Structure formats: C-alpha cells, structure tokens
C-alpha cells in the first residue's frame, strides 16, 4: 500500500480524491453506497447566504461523453448548512470543504465569517458558476474582481481558502496568479465550460436556462491542460478536476500538477467512481514501486 496522504494548506487528506461540489450533495445520498470515510474529502454543494430554488427544469442535458447542467445553485442557505449538514458531515471522518457562492463581495464575506466560527476544514470559493445571472462567474472572469473577492474573504476568515476558477477565460493562469497574490491558499479548477444543446424537433434548447455548464469526460483534456498551465504559473497547490472518470485520469491529472483531484459527473454513471479511483491509483503506485502519491505531482516530463 502506497502512502496516499496529501497535505493542502496544512490540511491533511487521507488520499487525494475529493468529491466535486454540486455532484455529491451533502453526502447523505452516496453514503448508501459506501462509507464517506473512504474519501479524501468532500466539497459540498455550493451554498449561498440565503436559500435558493435555482433554475427551472430541465437542468441537465447529455452530450457526447459529457453533460450540461444548469442547476443554478439550489441550496438551503448557509445557516441551515451550518446547523444541519455540517455537524453530520464532520462526523464522517473525511475532510469537509464548504463550497460557497455569492452575488456580491459582501455576501462572500458574510458567508466566510459564519464559516470561520465553525469546525469546517476548508472553504472553496466558487467564483465561476456559469449558471446564475449576476455574480458567480462574473467574479471569476476578470483578474480584478477575482482578486477583490479573494482579498475580502482572506480578511474574513483564517480557514484555508481555495479559489475555484472558471475555464471560461482567455488565460486562466492570470486569474490564478491574481488570487495567489491576494492570499489564496490553493486554487481548484476547472468549473464547467459554458455550453448548449438544442432539440431539433421542438427547436428549443434542452436546458430551460438555454445554456449550461459542460462537465464529464468530454472536458478532461481541456481541464488537464489548464491544470498543467496553472501548476506552472503559481506556487500554491492546485486541485485538479474536470472529467476525471478513471484512476488513469487521476494519475494523469496529478502528473500534470494537481496536488489533489475532484471527481464529479463520473459519479452519475458509476456511484463508486471516486472510491474505485482511490483503489486504482493506489495499485498503480504499488506496481510502479512509488512510495507516496506526492511523488507523482507535476512529474510530467514535457517535450
């Protein structure tokens, strides 16, 4: 058994595999399949200051090897999260990352202040949700607003902060550098890529929101490239995600520079995807005689 432990911003994970925000709820549903303690960590459903219903359905469409979603941040609000979900999650023996989103800098700050008073392990700041108007992605698509949010949340909490980056930008490394400069402890990427599907019979977009975020295997090569570029541009740890479906993908993502990885859409087809990835990566390290998973991080040898 290889040593699968990784450390991100002072937080120890028993293995580098985290379930991605929005695909795993608050853990309750997948717990019927496997104990949550098997996971390195859980990034919870994006939570906002107030409860939200999100967008109208349909909120999902299938694409070649991928999916589009337009949930629009449905969640019970931060107070209920802290009161009901967090205590339950914290009893599960895995790292809990609270994923949050806001519609103004003040809202991000308010949520972080509330989380600062809890025992949550880390906060993932979503500045990249493509599914809500105003805010969300808007913060993640300019260096200036990304830096502004980071600076404000940095001042609001001592918890380790992960800034979740949008791929819907010209140069993701510029945004990563901007948030690093303002005190982000880590960056995670990628959030979903904006996409669309149309029903050719009704001539209507399949998603009621018309457009939505693409994830799943289809985005993996794009995510891998962005993680590689970002890992070469910043010194803080990079958490890689986007289309990871197999343990081979997980190894590739870590070779590209990810210190940990997140698994999302792959869970829909195979609810055991994350745990199978942990086991598969471990077996790979053993076969290669590699003692610690940290040894493969950023070990791609570019031409």
């Amino acid at each position: 058994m290889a040593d699968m432990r990784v450390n991100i911003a002072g937080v120890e994970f028993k293995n580098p595999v985290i379930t991605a925000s929005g695909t795993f709820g608050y853990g309750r549903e997948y717990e019927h399949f496997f104990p949550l303690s098997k996971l390195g960590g859980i990034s919870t459903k994006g939570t906002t200051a107030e409860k939200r219903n999100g967008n109208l359905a349909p909120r999902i469409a299938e694409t070649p090897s991928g999916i589009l979603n337009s949930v629009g941040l449905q969640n019970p609000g931060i107070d209920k999260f802290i009161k009901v979900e967090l205590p339950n999650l914290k009893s599960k023996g895995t790292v809990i990352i609270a994923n949050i989103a806001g519609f103004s800098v003040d809202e991000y700050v308010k949520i972080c202040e509330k989380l600062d008073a809890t025992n949550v392990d880390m906060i993932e700041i979503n500045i990249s949700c493509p599914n809500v108007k105003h805010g969300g992605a808007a913060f993640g698509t300019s260096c200036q607003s990304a830096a502004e949010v980071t600076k404000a949340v940095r001042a609001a909490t001592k918890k380790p902060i992960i800034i979740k980056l949008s791929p819907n930008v010209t140069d993701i490394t510029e945004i990563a550098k901007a948030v690093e400069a303002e005190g982000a402890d880590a960056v995670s990427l990628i959030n979903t890529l904006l996409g669309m599907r149309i029903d050719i019979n009704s001539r209507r977009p399949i998603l009621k929101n018309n457009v939505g975020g693409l994830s799943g295997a289809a985005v993996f090569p794009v995510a891998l490239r962005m993680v590689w570029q970002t890992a070469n541009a910043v010194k803080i740890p990079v958490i890689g995600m986007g289309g990871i479906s197999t343990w081979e993908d997980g190894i590739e993502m870590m070779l590209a520079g990810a210190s940990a990885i997140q698994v999302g859409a792959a869970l829909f087809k195979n609810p055991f995807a994350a745990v199978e990835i942990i086991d598969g990566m471990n077996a790979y390290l053993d076969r290669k005689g590699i003692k610690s998973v940290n040894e493969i991080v950023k070990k791609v040898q570019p031409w």
Partner: protein
Amino acid sequence: MKYVQGKYPIIAKTTLAREVYDFTVCCPKIARAAEPGQFVTIAADGFPLRRPVSLCGIDKENGTIRLVFEVRGKGTKEISGLREGDMIDIIAPLGRGFRLKDYKTAILVGGGIGTPPMVPLAKIYGENCVAISGFRSAPNVILQEDFKATGAKTVLCTDDGTMGRKGFVTEALREEIEIKKPDIIFACGPSPMIKGVVDIAKEHGIPSQISLEERMGCGIGACLVCACRTVRNGEEFYAHVCQDGPVFESKDVIF
C-alpha cells in the same frame, strides 16, 4: 436497504409492441425492497447518464422485477440490444412510490409509456380498481392482458379508435367516476394527460397522485438537476423527482 447498484441477469426479454421491450431481471434484494411507483436507472454502454425506467412488476417471491420501456433515443436503443442472459447495470429501487394509505378503491390512468407503473397498483387493488389506459393507435397498445389478469376492470382508449374506444383517457375517467367515485386516482403519462386527469380529480374532490418525469443526473437526490415546482409548508419549493417523487400528491405540484 435503500438502494443498491449492481449488474443483474435479464432472465426474460420480450417485445410488447414496436420498439417497446419487456425485461424481467433477477435481483431478489431489490425486489424485496421495491414498492409500486419506484423506478430504476439503467446504465447504457457508451452514455454518460443512466436512463430512468419505472417498475412495471415486482415479484418478491421469485425475486424479480419487470421493466417495460420504449426506445426513444440512442440510450434506450443501446439498452434494448441487451439479450436474455446478459447482465443489466441498474441502481434500484429509487424514489418515493405511490402512497396507498387506506384508499380502498382506485382508478388508475396510464397514457402511452406511462402505463407500466400502473400494473403493480392493479395487482394490489384487483377488482377494487379500474385501469384506464390510452395509446395513440392499436400497434402501440401494451399491457392490457396484465391488467385483466388482476381482476381490475380495464378500459382501453386509442386516439384513432383502432382498438378499444376512440378518444382520450380523460373522457373515460369522467364516465368511470360517474359510475363509481373512487377513493383515489393514480396517473402516469404525458403532461397534458396528467394535467387533464388532475383537473377532473379536483373537480370531483378526489385526491390524486401522479408519477412525473424529469431529466436526471445522479437519480438519488444528490445533484439536484431533476427539479419539480411544488408547494411545501405554504412556500414554493423545487422538489426533486428522483427523491421526493417520481410520485407526487397532485395538490403539492405547481403545473
């Protein structure tokens, strides 16, 4: 047990109509836990999302479930290629089924490929229910023998009158209510049909439960994509078809 994921053998496969398939799957644990109105999600080789299909039969003694589905697109086409003896990858049993409470008599209304989930209800209610089904045309008609075998009164409607009576299920529903007002109406089918049934039920002060469809991701309540507008505690709330449904009390649903 809540739900499990696994690969189970298809022990019988038949064709009920053009592009409508009937699988019997051996999965004793699932059969034991399953209730009418619940569904399964089927993995289709090469597709990122599972396909939801209702339980058309639950045989707890023999440990089997029955899945009846129509080929609509590429995923169901792929699944229809499975043969007797092949393994089918399912997550089941999922969702909340019909709430039978102490309803003693029922009218079941099924439209098209919405008829399969009515069969387990007919098995329970037998002579104490009327099973109304509607289809486009004679070649689309399915499951009538199954309803008859339960002892239920069966009423068949086709849009073009090529089999059974000509017309919509809503007309037949009005007539059956005139003959005998049931304690409850259960319905599944295309949305205009459901809407029609719910309106008639309301007019007569009869409670109704409806099985709804929505596009799904996880199928277990984690990803929140399968939203359905409902009223909960007097407030608008987006419930989730895979977890809070697929069966809803019509009074809670905002159409």
